[in-house]
């Protein structure tokens, strides 16, 4: 069994933004149940010993953890490369200097659309101006800046302006991520679902910028429309490990709702969880597959697609991802029509004091 390369550390599920596409679970982990600084430091040490060399420090909004610099410093000491994934709210020059001093390598900033009014409308809170200042702080510090933009019905038509924004803000790369429908995103699927025409126009714009610009553009495929499932997580329990704010450990950040006993890093070592836990072994490799995946020449390329999506749509996580045109359930996706209003995410009920 190969060791994991990367860890997604969801340091908190709390966030000043309320984006309706958020892939966090609809049942957000409460702040009172979050891992302590010492627990995160131990988890990072275990991850490094296991083979993790890359950590995305994410959330929610990781800057809400006051101990973030101490967590970064532990990762740096262990040789783990750290990238901050942030809304930008709270990223002042002083805060970034503290994180860079601790060893932070890179910043990925979320943006909801290209203009202030549209971006704030999607975020559900005024935040665009603070994102602009955060981008300036990152480039002034000489750290590489990436933008992360989740695309959907309300902003796909602005993809050209979004790329221009990234160029103006000094981003080295823009991740144009078509919405993946998990958590709040699944709840809001109808309101977020674009039209096929919107997608085709946006893809043409991205192609044009790839030809004329140096900026790296990552286009995360809209698997509902392509008929080809995504090779989710590069295979179940193959490359990456996700740790939730409360210590639950998942093979994928969308796996909260699967009917699997999720191991907890408070009870078990990360090494045991990776190698021996039932959750990480449930869909490892190809032996769990049934038709049409079992005999498919693409089974080692896409691993049957996404288990979380199969479960969310069919109620059985072991079925072929319905995004695949070969799936007997593909009509459940192909017949969907978009429209309607969205529901903004709400915080978890608060109880007791918060760590960090």
């Amino acid at each position, binding site marked *: 069994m190969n*060791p994991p*390369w*990367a860890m997604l550390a969801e340091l908190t599920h709390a966030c000043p933004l309320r984006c309706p596409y958020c892939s966090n679970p609809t049942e957000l982990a409460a702040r009172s149940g979050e891992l302590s600084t010492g627990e995160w430091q131990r988890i990072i040490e275990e991850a490094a*010993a*296991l*083979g993790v*060399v*890359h950590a995305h420090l994410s959330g929610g909004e990781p800057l809400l953890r006051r101990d973030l610099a101490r967590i970064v410093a532990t990762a740096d000491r262990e*040789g783990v*490369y750290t*990238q901050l994934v942030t809304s930008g709210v709270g990223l002042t020059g002083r805060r970034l200097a503290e994180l860079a001093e601790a060893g932070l*390598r*890179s910043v*990925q900033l979320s943006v909801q659309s290209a203009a202030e009014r549209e971006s704030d409308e999607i975020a559900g809170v005024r935040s665009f101006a603070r994102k602009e200042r955060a981008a300036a702080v990152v480039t002034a510090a*000489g*750290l*590489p800046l*990436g933008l992360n933009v989740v695309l959907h019905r309300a902003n796909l038509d602005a993809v050209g302006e979004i790329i221009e924004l990234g160029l103006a803000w000094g981003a*080295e*790369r823009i*991740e144009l991520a078509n919405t993946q429908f998990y958590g709040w995103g699944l709840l809001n699927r109808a309101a977020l679902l674009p039209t096929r025409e919107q997608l085709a126009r946006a893809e043409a714009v991205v192609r044009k910028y790839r030809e004329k610009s140096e900026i790296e553009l*990552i286009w995360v495929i809209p698997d509902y429309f392509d008929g080809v499932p995504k090779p989710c997580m590069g295979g179940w329990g193959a490359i990456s490990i996700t740790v939730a704010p409360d210590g639950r450990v998942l093979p994928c950040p969308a796996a909260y709702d699967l009917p699997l006993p999720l191991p907890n890093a408070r009870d078990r070592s990360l090494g045991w969880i990776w190698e021996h836990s039932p959750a990480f072994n449930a869909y490892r490799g190809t032996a769990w597959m049934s038709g049409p995946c079992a005999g498919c020449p693409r089974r080692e390329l896409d691993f049957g697609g996404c288990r979380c999506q199969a479960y969310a749509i069919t109620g059985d996580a072991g079925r072929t991802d319905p995004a695949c045109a070969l799936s007997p359930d593909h009509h459940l996706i192909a017949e969907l029509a978009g429209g309607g209003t969205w529901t903004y995410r709400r915080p978890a009920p608060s109880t007791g004091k918060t760590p960090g």
Partner: protein
Amino acid sequence: MTEPAAWRPALSRSALLRHDPVRGADLLIVPERIVVLNEEAAAIVGLCDGRRTVAEIVAEVVAEFPEGVEADVVDFLDRVRAEGWLR
């Protein structure tokens, strides 16, 4: 872009070169990617300290790897710079 003769390659701030004892491999780690380097590539990147010129790096690499070819080393450095991992 710096004149080739004057360029003293250094890792860009976003790149981390490290040995991985778990896999017994040399890695170049950047924001969204992990690149596994072969022994010669790791030796070349390891010499990019911002002090050595390209000619000095070539001389050291060719001394260590007799099969190393000057043009290949220069080409490799250019490609890594084009990726944004060297400055």
